[in-house]
Structure formats: C-alpha cells, structure tokens
C-alpha cells in the first residue's frame, strides 16, 4: 500500500510571532521554520505503518517556496521514501492545497492520505476535509488512533467530550490529532540516508491547478494585551465579583 503524507513548512512553534508593522501579515524574515507539528505526527504514523509491514511506500508532499524541500528532507530522514515538492511562491490557501493534493493523488494512486488536522500558522483545519470531498473519499479526522484492516481503517477520533470510533473504507483521508503518537527525532544515519532519497519538483501549472486565492487577508493584528488580574480576599468576594462585575454567574 502506498501512503501519501502532506506536510507544511511553518514558523517554528517556539518562535514568538511578530506582526508586520503594516498589518499585512506576520514577520517571516530571520525566523526559524520547521515542519507543522501535526504533520510530524502524520509522518510518524505513516512510518509506523511501514515498520509494521502495512505500508510499502511513503511519499511526502509539501507545497510552497523552494525551502519546503528542507521540510520534505526532514520527513525523508524520519522514514518517508521519496518526496514531491509543488513549488510556488504564490500564497496557497486550503482549497488550492486540496486541489493540488487531489491532482497528486490522481497521479500517485495512494490508498491512504495522512496529514495534520491543521497547520499551526493559519489554524485553518480545512485541507484534509476539502481533499476528501474533492476525491469523494471517506475521511477520519482528528485521529488519535488508526488501525488498518483489510480494505478499511478504524479511526478513533477526538471529539468534544470524548472519543468516537469510526470505520472507513480505503482509500481514505486521515487527519492527525496531537495524541496519535510521539514523533521520533531524525537520527544521524537516517539524515545521511535521506540525502540520497529523491525529491521531485513540480509546479501548480504542471498539475493543471489554478491556485489563485479565493480569500483576501484584510489585516493581521496582535491579540489585545490582557489586563492584569486582581486578587480576591475570599470566596464570597469572588462569587460577588463573578455575579455583579463579570456577570458570568
């Protein structure tokens, strides 16, 4: 079975995000980038499937600027077999990404597409669902456990207030949640092996996909500064404030 893993290059989760002075976006110059943590979980899950003998080939796909190749190389060092970079300097919104992924799925014919439930930069949480819709495939989103069976997969989903177990027919799209697994570090021998693994580069035009944005970003702002809290002397005072000042109870 072939598995396609979609990974995104995002600003590293340790970086303190700064908004550009003209409010057009966030500062990306001299900022550390790394793989979207949810996508790292997707790579790890795919590698575990391969190690368990349930997947034969793992293809890691990333889209965006040339440096996305670094992100693909990280996936290769974790255990993916080859990479595909859809290279473009254009802004890619979730629908465009889903369309590009669909074009690649048509070409590669994987039985499973696995990807993070959302990227930590724009928090859209749309790509997996859009891709499933475009392909007409079943989806198992927010997966905290994935068990592959014969022609089907059992996915335990994290939902409000608990867990839901669904069975989906393959081929399918699975989006990963935080508790699915703990991604491994790339070891040095595997980093060296990854250098020799192939990465193909294509463009949106090669795939015949129009990636023009459908949404326009009007402005980006920092969250409002939180005001300092107050200390209360007693539970009675707290209840009083919640009732009369905050009016929440």
């Amino acid at each position, binding site marked *: 079975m072939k598995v396609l893993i979609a990974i995104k290059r995002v600003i590293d989760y340790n970086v303190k995000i700064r908004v550009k002075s003209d409010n057009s976006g966030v500062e990306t110059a001299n900022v550390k980038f*790394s793989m979207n943590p949810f996508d790292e979980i997707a790579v790890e899950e795919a590698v575990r499937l391969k190690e368990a003998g349930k997947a034969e080939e793992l293809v890691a796909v990333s889209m965006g600027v040339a440096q996305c*190749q*670094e992100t693909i*190389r*990280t996936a290769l*060092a974790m255990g993916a077999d080859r990479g595909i970079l859809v290279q473009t300097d254009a802004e890619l919104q979730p629908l465009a990404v889903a369309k590009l992924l669909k074009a690649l799925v048509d070409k590669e014919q994987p039985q499973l597409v696995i990807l993070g439930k959302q990227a930590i930069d724009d928090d859209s949480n749309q790509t997996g669902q859009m891709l499933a819709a475009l392909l007409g495939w079943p989806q198992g989103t927010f997966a905290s456990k994935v068990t592959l069976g014969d022609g089907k997969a059992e996915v335990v989903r994290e939902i409000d207030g608990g867990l839901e177990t669904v069975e989906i027919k393959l081929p399918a799209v699975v989006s990963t949640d935080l508790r699915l697994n703990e991604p491994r*570090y*790339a*070891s*040095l*021998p*595997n*980093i*060296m092996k*990854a*250098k020799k693994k192939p990465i193909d580069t294509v463009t949106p035009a090669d795939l015949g996909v129009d990636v023009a944005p459908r949404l326009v970003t009007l402005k980006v702002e920092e969250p409002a500064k939180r005001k300092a809290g107050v200390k209360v002397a007693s539970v009675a005072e707290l209840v009083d404030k919640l009732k009369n000042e905050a009016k929440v109870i």
Partner: protein
Amino acid sequence: MDFEFDETQVQIRDSIQKICAAYGDEYWLEKDRHGGFPDDFARDIAEAGWLGIALPERYGGAGLGVTEAAIMMMAIAESGAGFAGASAVHINIFGLKPVAVHGTEEQKRAWLPPIIRGEHRACFGVTEPNAGLDTARIQTRAERQGGEYLVHGAKIWTSTAQSANKILLLARTAPLEATPNPIDGLTLFYTDLDRRHVQVKEIEKMGRKAVDSNMVFIDGLRVPVDHRIGEEGKGFRYLLEGFNPERILIAAEAVGLGRAALRKATQYAKERHVFGRPIGQNQGIQHPLARSWAELEAANLMLFKAAALYDAGRPCGAEANAAKYLAAEAGFHACETAVMVHGGMGYAKEYHVERYMREVMIPRLAPVSRELVLSFLAERVLGLPKSY
C-alpha cells in the same frame, strides 16, 4: 560566499535541539550541584548516531566535516547544556581522528565502531603537569620491550578518565636530545585504561562538575605494539592535525553557551520591571546585550570560516586560533553580561547564568591560552619574531 546552512546542516541543528530539549535547565543545574556524568544524555546522543558525525562511513560514522560537527556541538551548548553537555561527548567527535587517519584497517575496525556506538569512552592523555602548553617536553616515557611498550609518567586535565575504558596516550619513545626537532620522538597510543597500572585522581574545579577532569598516574602500563597509532616518533605530528578542528569545536561550544546566556538575559530584561518599566528599556542594559550579540555573531562567522577552510583541505591555523580566541571572549562577555543583567538574581544558582559564567572559563583557558593564541597569530600572521 554563502552564509546559509544547507538542508543537512539545518537538520543536524534541529535534531540535536530536539534531543537536548529533554534535558532542561533543571537537569543541568542538578548535575552542576551534585556531579555525576550525564550518562542518559550521552546515551541519547550516541543512540541517534551522533558520535560518528565526523568519522568515516565505513566504520559506522557519517563522514561529515568539522562544519557539521561544529553545528552539532554549538546546538548542544546553546540548549543550556553548556560545557557539561558538550564535554560529555566532545572527545568522541574528533578525539579518534588520528586513528581514522593513521590507524591500520584492523585498528579502525576494532576501535571506531564502539566509540561511535557510545560503548567505549575514551579520554585524552596528552597534557602533563610539567609540560603544559609546551607539549613537546612531556616526560611520560614508553619503552619498547619486545612486543609491547612499558609506560611510566603522569598526565593532567584528562577529562572523563573516571569512567573511560580507553585512553589516547602520547608518550616519548626517543629522548628529547636524540631528536633534532623536539616535536618528534613522541608516539601515540590508543589502549585500554588498565586501572591496575593507572591511577586516576579527580581535580575539583570551578565548573562543569558533571564531567570529571583528572590527574592520571601511569606506572608500568604495558601497551601492545598493535595499540600504537601510525609510526613510532610521529605521534605529536598526528595530534597536531587535530588541533585546528578541536579549536573550531571549542569555539562553537563557547558561542553556543554565550547565546544561551544572552537568551536568558534578554528574556529577563524584558520581564523584570523596576521603576515601572522593563529594565530592558534602559540603554545601560541594552547596550551590553547588543554588544554581546554582535561579538557572538562575529566569532560565529570566524569559526565557520575556519571550518569551511578545514573541510576544503586548506590551511586554517590562523582562523581556527582566532575563532577560539574570539569565541571564548565573546562567550565570556555574554555570560558576564547575563549575570550583571540579572542583578542579584544573577548570583543565584536557580537563574542558571552564574553556572554558565563558571563554565565559560573553560574555552578561555583550554585547549590553549588566549596569550599563546595571540603569540601564534603575531608570529604566523603578522610575521613578528617568535616569542615562545
């Protein structure tokens, strides 16, 4: 001229950062307080294959250059592991280069894989109490007796000898008077640290308590001839080849630790409010921090220039020595500034920067003093008469 890390180099830095993230400030504070080798940290580094970064692929290494090794060591120190973390693995990185370059096929196959896997721990028996920087005048003798050498002498500042099972040992095999050039007549061995004939005594020191430094007394250690590296009498020449990479790695560690200190100090300057505003708003706080950043960046450029020259097979003595000098001083200024920016809290162990300041004395003193670096640069770069 390209100042960007390539893909592999970025991965090296990121992967090391991830390993180090499991060993936070409290871990190293505890190691500094009570000592004890950071075995779990060293094991994690070894298990992910990092000890072989600069050793040949044939023997389980990655065959990368000193540039990549420097990135690795800098990332370890910069994580806050400082010299306790860096020194715990430092010798495995370049220590056995003489074996890789001058050893026989048999020696390489026997010795390199266990060092890369972290199963063997080696220590460096070079410096002596009565020789110091004048290595050619070491007094440890190895006398050939049939199929072995009989070794007597003493070494000092031998790190990790408390737990090492191997020693890279430099000893005189021909008397100083009998060699026209004093750097000849010294022979290099890699042999078992047989504690029946080797007494190891720990030196209590200012910082880096986790990684022991020792005096080593060798009395009648028998070393088989096939534990000799390369030719008899050429040992110091083999070691000299490793001096430049070692200076580059030490420089990388110093820059890393300086950056850790600068990070802590900057954070504190943003958070600490006095007179109704963050202290980092005061130029008296800002300028030393900004100067430290500039100094660390300059040292960083010099060390990676030296590394690039070395990896390209070009001479790099001046650059490697200058990098060691600049990085140690920049690291020291950063650590000192970090303590001062923290005010009284800088003196408290729980703020970590006083530990950094004690550790950053290491690259100022070792493997060669600032003064000898400057004397070397004066002579070799500026063409002034030799002073030492």
